[in-house]
């Protein structure tokens, strides 16, 4: 059936559709600047009945969305917030070391200390030089204290930041589940979907997520590592048990009894608990960045400072106790006197055989079973040696560690004698030595305990394992020996009757700092854990700054790169889903024309009706 009335009907539907199109355009233009708003387009279709077109039907407004680009955008957002958080932390660490050539930075203060020792070596009896040296040493200790505190504060604030980020993520997950419920109840609501997408966007800066949509409109959210976060109406609860204060030795451990820092716990709706850090299911985003900072970057930075402080104290107070060659019958070997050893001091034995292989064993003194256990490293590089049970027991312990083919005995006092198998010739003792920490100022040797452990009652720094690793957090506790502060002459007088102008001790200290060949623990992340950095203390301090500098540079470069990628993806996403005023205005012109055309048809139909009516009249 055709006719004028149907034309009128069709034109009417056209007018309605144009009206709806105008609505969509005005909505797009109004929201052109709204964040998270995706451009709507009118979806219209032909209304067909009995095989004949009955006009145009407005199906609704659909969102212009490229799911692939959106998914990529979310991943890049997680990556960008990861790199941004790390770059910011590295910049903070790098800034701690002052500007190049600055007077207050750690390298500058160490240089000032060595320069003051140069001056003191030149004029040992001069009071101003002695006072300057003490002041420089005190500045250096103070600077280490300050830097260590800054690193500890950074780590503590990282812990709080993780707590805040996890709480925020948990809130977002609950909201997402709620949105899922509402969207399933009212499908096709672009506004609800936009709102939910905004939540997912925020979540993606915290955690690296992948999102999949279900047929009913609900979203499933999981981390790229496979941890299910939201499934329809069900949301996993995330929580974080922040610890405060974080000690220098507080580390993450999958074993809750040994863990010293907080961890992220996920509890699903069935009540199953998962330690997210142990499972490694969060790999990027702000939370992962903060975890990496807390557990790796700042631990290494703290360890670098601790190693430097320990090196500084030990370089000045370590006294070598050489082994003396001995022989008994056909057997030969070495003897060493361990009387001056304190907990933490090492004894090094080099042997060959049985079997021709050369071994070097490093024993670390301890004065309790607990200390002995702590001094024994898991990789076998150091072996705890309990010296509290007498030197007979020490000989037994060393003998056990060396195995067969060696005779270890305690011939007298604190002397330990290690002999090979003599005539059999299958084993050899090639070297034996120990290192003792000098605790007095007038021992007769040039070493002196100038730096002490201020946090442990001004105890000498021996690297002890008793009551926790002494090196842990030592940078925050290193202090000048109060006796040296009270009597600057101790910088020169290394024994009774030593003359005021004797340069022996200042020269020794200078050489120990600038030319000494020390080994620094690999925990500091300089030189690698298997081949620890070897060099002078001054060189090590420079390597610390260089490492921080290199880390900061690479973190900044990485972040710059990530931001460029993010901008590119965001650009693509916005070109696709954003509102372009020109497009909308062009559409407006089209709609105006269409509206005019439809109206024209109505006018024409009216004129035709009028004409028909006039015929009848």
């Amino acid at each position, binding site marked *: 059936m055709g006719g004028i009335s149907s034309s009128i009907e069709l034109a009417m539907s056209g007018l309605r559709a144009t009206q709806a199109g105008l609505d969509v355009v005005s909505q797009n233009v109004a929201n052109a600047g709204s964040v998270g708003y995706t451009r709507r387009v009118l979806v219209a279709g032909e209304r067909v009945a009995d095989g004949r077109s009955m006009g145009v039907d407005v199906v609704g407004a659909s969102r212009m969305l490229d799911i692939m680009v959106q998914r990529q955008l979310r991943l890049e957002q997680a990556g960008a917030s990861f790199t941004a958080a790390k770059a910011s932390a590295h910049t903070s660490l790098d800034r701690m070391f002052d500007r190049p050539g600055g007077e207050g930075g750690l390298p500058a203060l160490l240089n000032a200390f060595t320069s003051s020792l140069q001056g003191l070596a030149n004029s040992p009896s001069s009071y101003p030089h002695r006072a300057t040296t003490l002041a420089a040493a005190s500045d250096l200790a103070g600077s280490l204290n300050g830097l260590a505190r800054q690193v500890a504060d950074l780590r503590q604030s990282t812990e709080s930041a993780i707590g805040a980020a996890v709480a925020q993520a948990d809130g977002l997950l609950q909201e997402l589940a709620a949105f899922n419920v509402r969207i399933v109840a009212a499908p096709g609501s672009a506004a609800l979907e936009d709102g939910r997408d905004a939540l997912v966007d925020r979540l993606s800066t915290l955690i690296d997520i992948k999102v999949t949509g279900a047929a009913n409109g609900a979203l499933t959210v999981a981390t790229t590592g496979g941890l299910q976060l939201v499934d329809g109406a069900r949301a996993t609860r995330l929580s974080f048990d922040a610890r405060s204060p974080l000690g220098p030795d507080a580390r993450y451990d999958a074993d809750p009894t040994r863990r010293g820092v907080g961890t992220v716990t996920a509890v699903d709706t069935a009540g199953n608990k998962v330690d997210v850090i142990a499972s490694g299911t969060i790999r990027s985003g702000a939370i992962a960045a903060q975890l990496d900072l807390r557990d790796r970057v700042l631990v290494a930075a703290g360890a670098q400072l601790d190693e430097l402080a320990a090196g500084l104290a030990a370089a000045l107070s370590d006294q070598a106790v050489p082994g003396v060659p001995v022989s008994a019958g056909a057997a030969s070997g070495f003897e060493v006197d361990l009387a001056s050893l304190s907990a933490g001091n090492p004894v090094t034995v080099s042997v060959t055989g049985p079997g021709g292989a050369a071994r070097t064993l490093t024993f670390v003194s301890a004065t309790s079973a607990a200390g002995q256990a702590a001094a024994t490293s898991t990789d076998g590089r150091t072996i705890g040696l309990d010296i509290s049970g007498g030197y007979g027991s020490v000989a037994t312990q060393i003998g056990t560690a060396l195995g067969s083919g060696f005779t270890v005995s305690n011939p007298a006092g604190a002397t330990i004698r290690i002999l090979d198998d003599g005539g059999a010739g299958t084993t050899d003792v090639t070297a034996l030595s120990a290192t003792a920490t000098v605790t007095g100022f007038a021992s007769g040797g040039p070493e002196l305990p100038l730096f002490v452990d201020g946090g442990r009652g001004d105890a000498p720094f021996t690297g002890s394992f008793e009551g926790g690793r002494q090196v842990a957090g030592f940078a925050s506790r290193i202090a000048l020996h109060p006796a040296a502060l009270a009597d600057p002459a101790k910088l020169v007088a290394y024994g009774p009757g030593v003359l005021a102008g004797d340069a022996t001790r200042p020269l020794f200290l200078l050489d120990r700092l600038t030319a000494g060949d020390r080994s620094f623990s690999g925990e500091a992340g300089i030189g690698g854990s298997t081949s620890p950095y070897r060099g002078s203390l001054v060189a090590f301090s420079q390597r610390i700054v260089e490492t*921080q500098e290199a880390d900061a540079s690479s973190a900044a470069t990485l972040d710059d790169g990530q931001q460029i990628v993010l901008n590119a993806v965001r650009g693509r996403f916005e070109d696709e889903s954003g509102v372009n005023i020109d497009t909308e205005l062009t559409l407006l012109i089209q709609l105006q024309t269409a509206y005019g055309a439809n109206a024209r048809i109505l006018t024409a139909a009216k004129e035709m009706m009028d004409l028909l009516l006039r015929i009848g009249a």
Partner: protein
Amino acid sequence: MTIAGYGIGSSGARRADETFRSLKGNLADLQAQLTTGRKAETHAALGPDAGASLDARARLASLEGYTANIVDAQLRVTLMSQGLSELESLARGLRTGLPGALNRTPVGQTNAQVSAEDGLRRAIDVLNTDAAGRFLFAGRASDTSPVAPYGVIMEGGAGRAGLKQIVAERKEADRGPDGMGRLALASAGPNVTLSEEAAGLPFGFKLVGASATGGLSAALGTGSPASASFAVTSQPASGNTVNVVLDLPDGSRTTLTLTATAAGPAGSTTGFRIGTTAADTSANLSAALAAALREAGGTALASASALQASRGFFAGTAANPSPRVAGPPFASATGLVAGSAADTVGWYRGDASDGSARETAPVRTGEGASVAIGARANEAPFQALLASLGALAAEAFPEGDSTARARYAALADRVVAAAPSGGIAEIATDLSTAHIALGQASDRVDATRNQVRDLIVGVENADPSEVATKLLETQTRLQASYQTTSAIARLTLLDYL
């Protein structure tokens, strides 16, 4: 290439904003570089050059330390050299000035003797030179003035004997109770025997030779203590002589020669009268020997004794003072005892260690390079000079003393003979060599320091013209971006509807 739309809210507009911000950031950065002259405010911003900057800074600090050491050492060496040339001129004065002073009277007022006191004071002053509280001739004990004050050295005090007392005691011990220098004279018939008081006695004359001419005979005894016997085997002719050779405590030697005369005055110290019989002659010889010994005991022996005492005094230190004559009584003393810090002045209070005096003050002038510029006031040449000056200053030559001129002449002879020649010059040479080494080290350190500074400037400092150029370029780019962006942003369909 597709060109995306540009307008309000489009991503293009947002990207333009970011570009503006980054360009503006660059501008601020360049402006800061221009103001501070530094390329970067953090090590990270220096990039790979940060390591070079750190290394160079450490080297610079150590080089500046060396420079400070060298400047300080050069000042010290200059001061020491000045002092040494003063000591040299004192020693020269002893060698050349003393003999000339002999002919002036009264000897008690001779320039040389007065100037010996003054000279000792000046020598003490030089050896107590300090540079900024650091005593240059004290070895490692650089916080103590190494030499005791003049008054203490000469006069002692607080129950401790000074040089004058020690000289007086020694002189008494050397001369003996009868003034014959601890020799005993016996005569029987034609024989005269001269013997030392006791074997191994550290005081007085030591018999080392005896000879005679004509009818006189002389022989050194073979037993102990040493002795010499003279005999008038037949009456000597006039002009025949008897000679006795004696060693003096300071190591010098004197010969007494007695000539037989037909008629000579009694009590002569140079001759004896030939008597009527051999026994008479022998008695005359004995009397003449006694007179000659007494005279020598008051002059040559006294001078030698003073010089020896002074040497012993200046060989001691504060911890081990000079040995003392065991007594009183001193005239019959038979040995020396160690002096103690409680009873004897120790003139030297500095570093008394063995080993090279130069090495007591090493100056680091570079990696492993060192210049030694130490000195100790108790080095042998200084000791010898002080002992000579001390002996002269401790001796009194009063106008009324008949032996004064002879004593003075004897002492002057000995001092001239013993005056240090060369030793002080050797020390001065050591120091001038050190001065040259310091100068070379200074040049070397300066050159290296300049290189390191250049390196630091190259690494850390921003080149103003480069920064200015960059600044201009960035400004132009930013302006151009602003203009085009605003022009594009004004282009909207809205205006044409």
